[in-house]
């Protein structure tokens, strides 16, 4: 393992120290594991709090700022935050109008946020939550944990964040967050495994000639393995899965997301194929994002997330945002 770290046990704390040094508009409590906006709490504004394991940077701390999240609580690498962290984040940004928790559908995230919400309610903070579960690679049934939450988390945070910034009440921001999650679908493909620093070696072995289809964002293996193919064919596999679940139509918001180890040039190669695929189905890429946004440490690979837009969603997506890793219009 070759990594730019001091110590495998202090990676998250050391990274938060760097984040604080690089972004004066943020406040960071390394001990408590909380990142929040310097101007929070804002009286009367609904606050958005998200969190999850570290290793997905810039998700979530990189999206704290104007028009998006008010606070993030990063857990250990690939491990959800503990309830204390979520409570600390919630209390720091509550401006009296309530707090929306954005939760990715993983057993650990759900349980820790639920415990935290109970503690917050005891202290009189109004907390609502939205569960993001966009990953079509995962079978959803009564007998499983349900679909994973992956790339759509960014869409939910941006669009609901814009609404909250505009002064919407908690119920309205929660409804919008749920609507974005319901209209979004994702599929991911890995070309290599990632290496968790504390584990010290790649999570899974993947031969040079093969890819993992239907991965999540924690270096867990995917649904199946397939021979390496062209970007066109791999994009088609992902898009077939997305289209098969929620037929592509009308105006779409499309993200081609790198998993942390794939160069931008390859992501643009993939984006060209995705755009052509969508056009071929009679739909249109109205808004797009290409880059490393919801990563899995140093994994090579990509995921595609699609959201069906309407006028309101498009306006909220276009609304100004100013965070370390997403910034426009302001």
């Amino acid at each position, binding site marked *: 393992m070759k990594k730019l770290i001091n110590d495998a046990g202090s990676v998250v704390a050391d990274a938060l120290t760097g984040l604080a040094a690089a972004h004066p508009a943020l406040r960071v409590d390394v001990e408590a594991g909380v990142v929040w906006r310097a101007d929070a709490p804002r009286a009367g504004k609904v606050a958005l709090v998200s969190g999850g394991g570290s290793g997905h940077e810039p998700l979530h701390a990189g999206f704290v700022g104007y028009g998006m999240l008010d606070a993030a609580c990063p857990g250990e690498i690939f491990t959800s935050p503990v309830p204390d962290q979520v409570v600390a984040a919630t209390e720091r940004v509550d401006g009296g109008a309530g707090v929306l928790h954005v939760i990715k559908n993983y*057993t650990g995230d759900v349980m*820790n946020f639920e415990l935290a919400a109970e503690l917050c309610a005891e202290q009189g903070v109004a907390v609502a939550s939205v569960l993001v579960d966009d*990953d079509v690679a995962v079978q959803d049934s009564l007998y499983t944990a349900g679909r994973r939450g992956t790339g759509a988390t960014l869409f939910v945070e941006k669009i609901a964040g814009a609404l909250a910034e505009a002064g919407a009440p908690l119920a309205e921001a929660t409804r919008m967050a749920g609507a974005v999650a319901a209209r979004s679908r994702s599929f991911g493909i890995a070309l290599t495994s990632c290496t968790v620093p504390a584990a010290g070696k790649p999570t899974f072995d993947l031969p040079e000639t093969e890819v993992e289809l239907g991965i999540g964002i924690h270096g867990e293996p995917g649904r199946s393995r397939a021979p390496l193919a062209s970007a066109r064919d791999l994009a088609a596999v992902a898009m077939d899965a997305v289209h098969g679940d929620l037929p592509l139509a009308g105006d779409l918001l499309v993200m081609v997301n790198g998993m942390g180890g794939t160069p931008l040039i390859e992501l643009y190669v993939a984006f060209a194929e995705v755009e052509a695929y969508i056009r071929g189905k009679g739909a249109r890429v109205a808004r797009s994002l290409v880059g490393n946004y919801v990563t899995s440490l140093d994994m090579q690979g990509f995921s595609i997330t699609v959201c069906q837009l309407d006028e309101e969603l498009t306006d909220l997506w276009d609304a100004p945002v100013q965070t370390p890793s997403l910034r426009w219009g302001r």
Partner: protein
Amino acid sequence: MDVTFFTAWIQEIIRVLAINRDRLTRLDAAIGDADHGTNLDRGFTSVRQAMSDTPPDTPGQLLTLVGNTLIRRVGGASGPLYGSLFRQLGKSLGDAQEVSLDDLAAAFATALESVTRLGKAAEGDKTMVDALAPAARALCSAARDGLKPGEALDRAAAAAAEGAEATIPLQARKGRASYLGPRSVGHEDPGAASSALIVSAMHP
């Protein structure tokens, strides 16, 4: 069984988890995200600190302290699940200075219930419940049959180990391994493996 017995149990858990940290993480890498051993080791290292900061007087106090510390330190699914297991054990044992095998068996059954409720898992889902449930049953039947604590705990340990091993051919229906579908077959569940270690550490 008094607070000394339960303190020895927790100290043995800390020792055994440190030794098995890499094995648990390897099991987790096969069907999860390669952090189970590291997380539990981190949590129980904090437990050691908490125990020396405020040495508990009763078994109930001790186990509640362990549970609260795990919830505050571990994160993921194993933090709340193991945290509520130990908290419920502590709550059920109450203020008693001395715990009988009957008390322990009853407390274990209640603690298992709170874990299954929180994790919404049943036996056969390929989770820690597959090791904890047979252990709870073994304790109950040993108490009913009037066995000595040592023998009862041996049976519980054997039942938990068998339960963990029996997760190998199962397809996961809960937790992160469930996302792999049929590909989770053929691997021991890391949560069941750590549960077996925790139960086995309870030797008098």
